[in-house]
């Protein structure tokens, strides 16, 4: 259900990669070296159902990802997966939240136009009457120092 990225959506020179996603899914992504700075003072927020499919996004999410709200609702978050991000980071994320705990980390996200943006993300399980009904992620502006540390660390992971 996740479509490959389309050359006509991309702004600037791009490279291609094929991502191996969860459940054997594959996606061709096109990516550029253009970074969009994190908007000051804003939070990027999304919530999913218990299967991890997006059910709610805020305006900052739409603006930064370049997708419309309609394109995002019902999709998994790997629509933002950037080829420079190691799978190990997401294994850690899912292991943590499935265990009912909060995950925090630095993430490089891929935009629909092929560009990228860095965030400091916090993901928590949403518990209602003792049941996990979904997950929420709130992203905020990361410090450059932490981004640079993450770039170094992620290049050593797969």
């Amino acid at each position, binding site marked *: 259900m996740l479509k490959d990225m389309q050359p006509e959506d991309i702004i600037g020179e791009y490279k291609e990669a094929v991502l191996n996603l969860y459940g054997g899914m594959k996606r061709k992504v096109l990516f550029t070296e253009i970074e969009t700075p994190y908007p000051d*003072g804003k939070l990027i927020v999304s*919530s999913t159902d218990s299967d991890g499919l997006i059910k709610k996004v805020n305006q900052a999410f739409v603006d930064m990802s370049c997708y419309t709200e309609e394109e995002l609702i019902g999709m998994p978050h790997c629509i933002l997966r950037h080829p420079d991000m190691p799978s190990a980071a997401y294994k850690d994320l899912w292991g943590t939240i499935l265990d009912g705990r909060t995950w925090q980390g630095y993430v490089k996200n891929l935009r629909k136009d092929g560009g990228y943006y860095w965030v400091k993300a*916090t993901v928590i399980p949403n518990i209602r009457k003792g049941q996990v009904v979904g997950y929420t992620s*709130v992203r905020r*502006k*990361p410090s450059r*120092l932490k981004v640079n540390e993450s770039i170094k660390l992620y290049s050593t992971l797969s």
Partner: protein
Amino acid sequence: MTFNFTVSPDFAPDRLSGWYIFNTWLQKQTDSAIHLEIYPDFAAQKAAITSDKIDLIYANPYDAAMLVREKGFLPLVKSAGSSDEAILAVHRDNAIIDVEALPSGIRVAHTQDPDVRMIGMIMLEPSNLTSDTLQAINCDTYILVAKNILQNKADVGIFLAQAYDDLSDLVKKQLKVLVRSQISVIHHSLMIGPKLQAKREEIQNLLINMHGSAKSKEILDSLGFSCWQKVDDEEMEFMIDLMDTLAI
């Protein structure tokens, strides 16, 4: 039976009489004895909540999680169209124009308002500042936060955006805003405790319609609100989840 009402200690001082008038109105409308008790600070208010002395509260979003999860409170309403936003400001003559350029060790003036301080600290994160790498200057009011900056006793101030906007033009002219948050989903809410919950719908309806009559509209005016807007359980749960992610 008398119920106890309290207002988060971060209310603007000139609204105090408004809250007393609101309390009188609410007593009349609900035909219940409701006593308004204002606590001098968040610690005193928390002690009252912990010992189950509070039945109705205009709560800071920072306290919402504890009120809902530990004390069984439910949301009623919020002031329509308003949210709690924070501002980071420096002296106009400060060469810094970007938060990222703020050096470690700087002096940060703030008040005790827990949600504003939290949002402010998050907005300082891009500069790698944490509570360990800055010098906090605790102030009683936002006017004092501004004064500390103007007198060069603080480098940065964390303001409630509304309080910053309400500073005099003379003061604002000497300050420079580095960032203003645009979060929109964090807000104070009027919340109701277990002992009053049988009346939840009745009180909610009274409040939602409060702007309908000229007389009660005046009371809203004195609180600085245009009207009350219903907050449902899921909106409150969402805000609590959000606060949880921000608190770490």
